[in-house]
């Protein structure tokens, strides 16, 4: 049955937590009130990506795009847009100049994007398999089962040039081919959905918005390499994604798209979910497999590679969520088509989680080779609050910074590595002039100290040493020798650590040291933190604006401010704990921070 209108409500975690559920229910009630149940379908979809302006509601076929919708807006949307065919201007997106855009094509955030991985996110109801099928879902699985040999599938993947989106960028077809070539009665397919990089959430959004695409892709790989069992290893912290995967798996089994003799063919394949339990190291392949086996998630040396000797010592293909999401499209549209997108050595698109000090934070998908400038300024709308751009951290705790100088570099796997960073899972954290590069490096190092599994000493001791030195520098106690030590320890870790976590853990330190050497020098030689983030290096003073109102002296938790009423006060710097309470409370702008 076709409806006249479709109202799409974002049901991603970000929007759900901003009352998208109430909006959905109110819209349904208002549609019923207006007697439009037979003409209008209200759908809860996956993430639209524009999280900054959520919750988002879109009305089709008008393509009306409403941002920051509240539950009480439901009535107006139904009465105006659905009944009278008018746009509710108040809810349309307005850019800085005040120009409103009621359709997504006009919004800067969407203009340079190209959606392959997120093709169904924000468009279909992820809890209904029919909607996925209506968008060519499972056509790729049907095609491989009845029209292609396993070798042809791998050849198509080779032509596409798809590289692993989990971070390292290893060619996907090669992993599949290794596993295919090994003789074994049992083989496994694994989906890595243990998205542990703080500040990245593209995998979660893909699973929540389009779970069937992952199931279909895993079945295709199962056919190509000769595996009958798949596992999805997913963070327990993503309950909505787990729920939607469970629904999708049950529906796929019911339709004969998972289980015995898929679509009547000789091929059988099924998938189970295994929960992670909050260990960043489990994103590393061998640690992840140990965790699926129910053990402590500690990595083992490679080789042997999992493709040859993986889960329970059987050949295992492991790909990350975003990699899987590309597979069905490559099969239906062809590897050649996919290879035509992006750059020569990095084909296709990449999803980035654009966050930090940026105006439009959200999920963006762009062709590989898009420059950082396009992402930060054209899509992201630039820096919040008119501050100056400082750097972007890519690759999270394993990556590094990209500075203003490199803002026009086309982003792909190889250019990022050449710049001393890495693609990682796709987190992109924008920093402005108020962020201290040493503070950020320290933040990532603290993360690595906590997440190091402790098995090998370069990582266990190295992360701790780096953290201690950074702390020393941030407290104004650093020496020039410390900078040499940071480099020496970092380089040793890169060479000697057992797994990817330890080998990349020094990256944020080494890259910030390389690009922001002068800031390290300032901290060490001038005892100064220009961003005012390193507490031990800032001093609060009172200037002549002071009227002697005594408010700061009363608010100071350590009683270090003194002075007579109606006289200028002074701060005793030796006692000050730099909590900033005085500055926060002063009504006369009399407190200065240096």
């Amino acid at each position, binding site marked *: 049955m076709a409806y006249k209108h479709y109202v799409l409500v974002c049901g991603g*975690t*970000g929007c*759900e*937590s*901003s009352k998208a559920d109430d909006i959905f229910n109110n819209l349904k009630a208002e549609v019923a009130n207006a007697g439009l149940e037979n003409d209008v379908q209200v759908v809860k979809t996956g993430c639209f990506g524009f*999280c*900054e302006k*959520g919750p988002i509601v879109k009305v089709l076929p008008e393509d009306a795009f409403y941002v920051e919708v509240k539950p009480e807006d439901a009535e107006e949307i139904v009465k105006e847009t659905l009944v009278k065919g008018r746009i509710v201007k108040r809810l349309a997106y307005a850019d800085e100049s005040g120009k409103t855009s009621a359709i997504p094509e006009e919004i800067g955030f969407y203009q340079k994007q190209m959606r392959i991985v997120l093709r169904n996110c924000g468009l279909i109801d992820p809890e209904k398999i029919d909607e996925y099928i209506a968008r060519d879902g499972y056509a790729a699985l049907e095609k491989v089962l009845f029209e292609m040999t396993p070798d042809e599938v791998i050849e198509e993947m080779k032509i596409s040039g798809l590289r692993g989106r989990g971070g390292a960028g290893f060619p996907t077809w090669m992993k599949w081919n290794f596993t295919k070539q090994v003789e074994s009665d049992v083989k496994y397919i694994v989906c890595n959905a243990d*998205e*542990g*990089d*703080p*500040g*990245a*959430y593209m995998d*979660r959004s893909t699973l929540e918005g389009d779970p069937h695409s992952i199931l279909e892709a895993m079945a295709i790989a199962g056919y190509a390499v000769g595996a009958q069992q798949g596992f999805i290893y997913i963070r*327990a*912290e*993503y309950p909505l994604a787990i729920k939607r995967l469970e629904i999708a798996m049950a529906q796929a089994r019911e339709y004969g798209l998972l289980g015995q003799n898929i679509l009547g063919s000789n091929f059988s394949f099924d998938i189970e979910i*295994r*929960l*992670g*339990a*909050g*260990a*960043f190291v489990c994103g590393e392949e061998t640690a992840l497999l140990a*965790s*699926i*086996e*129910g*053990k*402590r*998630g500690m990595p083992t040396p490679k080789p042997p590679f999992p493709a040859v000797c993986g889960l*329970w010592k059987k050949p295992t293909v492991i790909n990350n969520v975003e990699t899987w999401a590309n597979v069905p499209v490559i099969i239906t549209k062809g590897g050649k088509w996919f290879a035509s997108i992006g750059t020569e050595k990095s084909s296709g698109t990449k999803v980035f*989680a654009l*966050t*930090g*000090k940026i105006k439009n*934070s*959200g999920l963006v998908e762009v062709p590989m080779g898009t420059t950082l400038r396009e992402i930060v300024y054209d899509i992201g709308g630039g820096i919040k609050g008119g501050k100056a751009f400082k750097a972007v*951290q890519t690759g*999270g705790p394993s990556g590094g910074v990209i500075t203003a100088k490199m803002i026009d570099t086309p982003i792909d796997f190889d250019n990022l590595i050449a710049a001393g960073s890495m693609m990682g899972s796709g*987190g992109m*954290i924008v*920093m402005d002039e108020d*962020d201290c590069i040493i503070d*950020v490096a320290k*933040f*990532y190092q603290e*993360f690595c100290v906590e997440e190091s*599994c402790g098995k090998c000493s370069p990582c266990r001791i190295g992360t701790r040493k780096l953290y201690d030195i950074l702390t020393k520098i941030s407290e104004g106690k650093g020496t020039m020798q410390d900078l040499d030590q940071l480099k020496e320890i970092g380089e040793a870790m890169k060479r000697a650590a057992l797994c990817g976590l330890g080998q990349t853990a020094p990256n944020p330190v080494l890259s910030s040291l390389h690009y922001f050497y002068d800031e390290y020098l300032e901290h060490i030689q001038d005892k100064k933190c220009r961003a005012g983030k390193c507490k031990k290096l800032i001093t609060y003073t009172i200037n002549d604006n002071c009227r002697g109102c005594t408010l700061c002296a009363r608010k100071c938790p350590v009683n270090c401010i003194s002075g007579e009423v109606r006289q200028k006060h002074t701060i005793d710097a030796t006692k000050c704990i730099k909590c900033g309470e005085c500055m926060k409370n002063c009504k006369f702008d009399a407190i200065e921070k240096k």
Partner: protein
Amino acid sequence: MPTDQKTETVFSKELENFIAEWKEKPGNLIMILHKVQSEFGYISRSAAMKVAEMLDIPLAKIYGVITFYHFFKLNKPGKNVIQVCMGTACYLKGGQAILDETAKHLNIPVKGVTDDGLFSLESVRCVGCCGLAPVVVIGDEVFGKVLPEQMPEILANFSE
């Protein structure tokens, strides 16, 4: 910390069935521990001992796993668990100040529980709502774009 030994060795029928169903499956331990934690809110020593007995594996193996993964809790959390996100986006936007303010307001350290058992405080790594940074999660409810000074008011709603 006092624990009610008696109730935590009594598993619900559902939990017992789950363990029976998974008992023979390879790699079952983490899945079973998740189920135990979702029933009690944490994994007590007595519950861990019972699982060891039911699966016929050493208690040390269970503790090896529980202490390795951040998600598993060894101590009973408060009625309302406050999770302050300390992912990168939230950190840059002031997550630390929210954590400090909440700890000060409740007069407990991070990972602590209030005396009345009403709240416990944790810092977590990225809840995946970076567009809403800085984020605080209390129970199932997510609060976005939080300012430190809003915390007392937010917490007051959970104080019954």
